[in-house]
């Protein structure tokens, strides 16, 4: 996976955030999200501070605000769910613009929206500043089972190949005048899916044989061990530790 395989979420750069070793970033993001989730929902100001923290990280990484905000679109489905909450949750009612809303429902919606958005934003910043391969190395460094990391790396490596295969099948269908319009056409699409499975599985078998012939014995040699200095760990830990401070304040105030 050279430069050509960098995923479209990654944004090349040479900021301090880009330069941090991947496992420190992964640990930092995970720690941050855990802290955010355990913050009491009533501490509204704490969430504002979290957002400022993430904004600072994004600014350090030279990520344009529009880029991050556009990626947040992923959370639209659960935003819709959150908007339902004030209407369906029972409890004390309040009236806003003549509409009766439930107070616990409003808190619930706020809770999901705030924590969900911060979580998505943290993940987006991580994915935009870390290369795929580095992410996988980081996961391995964080003691994920090597076999799981291998599976993930094969999935990432061949994801584009399989998706392209699917696209070629789609082109082939359309060039023969097929257009899926409704349930009646599911049979054709499902046959494509079946063929795609067979092709993927057979490709897996071929990849395996090719790897055996190159001396593969079940584990990948680690040729570029990622390491982090104490300074880098401190730098990465700044985000979750600051967040933890805010969280503790949120609990005590």
């Amino acid at each position: 996976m050279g430069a050509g395989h960098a995923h479209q979420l990654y944004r090349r750069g040479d900021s301090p955030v880009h330069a941090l070793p991947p496992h420190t970033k992964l640990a930092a993001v995970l720690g941050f999200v855990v802290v955010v989730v355990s913050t009491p929902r009533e501490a509204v100001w704490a969430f504002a501070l979290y957002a400022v923290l993430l904004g600072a990280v994004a600014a350090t990484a030279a990520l344009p605000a529009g880029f991050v905000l556009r990626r947040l679109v992923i959370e639209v489905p659960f935003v819709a769910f959150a908007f339902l909450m004030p209407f369906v949750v029972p409890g004390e009612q309040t009236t806003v613009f003549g509409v009766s809303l439930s107070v616990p429902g409003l808190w619930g919606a706020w809770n999901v929206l705030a924590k969900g958005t911060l979580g998505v934003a943290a993940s987006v910043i991580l994915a935009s500043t870390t290369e795929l391969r580095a992410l996988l190395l980081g996961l391995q460094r964080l003691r994920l089972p090597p076999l799981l990391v291998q599976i993930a790396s094969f999935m990432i490596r061949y994801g584009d190949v399989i998706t392209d295969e699917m696209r070629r099948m789609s082109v082939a269908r359309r060039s023969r005048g097929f257009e899926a319009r409704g349930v009646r056409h599911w049979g054709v699409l499902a046959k494509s899916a079946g063929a795609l499975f067979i092709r993927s599985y057979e490709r897996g078998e071929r990849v395996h044989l090719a790897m055996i012939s190159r001396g593969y014995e079940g584990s990948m040699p680690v040729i570029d061990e990622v390491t982090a200095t104490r300074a880098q760990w401190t730098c990465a830990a700044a985000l979750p530790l600051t967040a933890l401070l805010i969280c503790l304040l949120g609990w005590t105030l």
Partner: protein
Amino acid sequence: MALIINAVHVPDGFINAPVSAAAGVVAVGAVAVSLRGARRELEGTSRAGGHGGERTAPLAGLVAAFIFAVQMLNFPVAAGTSGHLLGGALAAILVGPYTGVLCIAVVLLMQGILFADGGLTALGVNITVMGVVTAVVAYALFRGLVLVLPRTRRSVTVASFVAALVSVPAAAAAFTLVYAIGGTTDVPIGKVLTAMVGVHTLIGIGEAVITMLTVGAVVAVRPDLVHGARGLTAPLKLRVDGELVDAVPATAAAPAPAGSPKKVWIGGLVTAFVLAGFVSFYASSNPDGLEKVAADKGIDKNVEEHAAAGSPLADYGVKDVEDARLSGGLAGVIGVGATLAVGTGAFWAVRRRRTASAPPSAPSSESRTAESV
């Protein structure tokens, strides 16, 4: 713009921290078990045999890539609406439950880290609900049906339809259980359950049709690749002078079925009862969850009771049993028992009629052995 019916991954902040952590532990355990099981499963498909562990990574990786890709294949429903495959049941049937769980877990992990689809703290919940529950329910049902129904290709498609159909609402119910224990907002659980299972039954129908068609397509071409249908291949027959004769008497020793029917049944049964009884027993002992909701429901009289509210199992508690924990556990066990009784009765009835009406005929033309592929 086309509306896409999408299964939403659970975001951060939806389930509280302790329950997310507990689900994380469950997911880690399930993945660890699956890593061991997948070696065995993928070794089993090996024709040469002998290399189990090293086949796992490339094959499971490619299957994960397939699941990832096939989730992007849009199936138009009508008037600009379209749905897509969730793939849990499909993966379990095609490559076996362990590899299936592993592939879904890897897909969810990568979606969480790369695409921010599903919260990182909710990863455990997502893997447990969408991977483990879906795959285990689908595979247990599929395997059970395949063993009970006559050995034909049609049975495989019927079994995959039912397995996928049930697996989606089952996952929705599992999510509701998690939400009941650790949801951050006290939505009345009865309502959540009705809504979740209702919506997901609709989604499940779509999933079932697609899964059935896809499994059918694979079985037609490479029956040896369908893990769940292993042991169903009939011996190769040759037509000699218009008469079917057994070819070589099974040289390559047809792969044994994944387990004896009895073992599968008993294992599934024990798991179901343990889950239903013990887990809901434990679940309702948590003062944050069901009891609080129950208290809220008691206070608030405006809440509409749903249709089944009068039934003895309403709200997953048995009437006249005082202890809330015991009641919840009991309801779970009774539910599983009833489902099992009805299910087994139906399967037996169908099987009886099938075997009575048609003399057992060998499905010779439909299966190929490894040599012919």
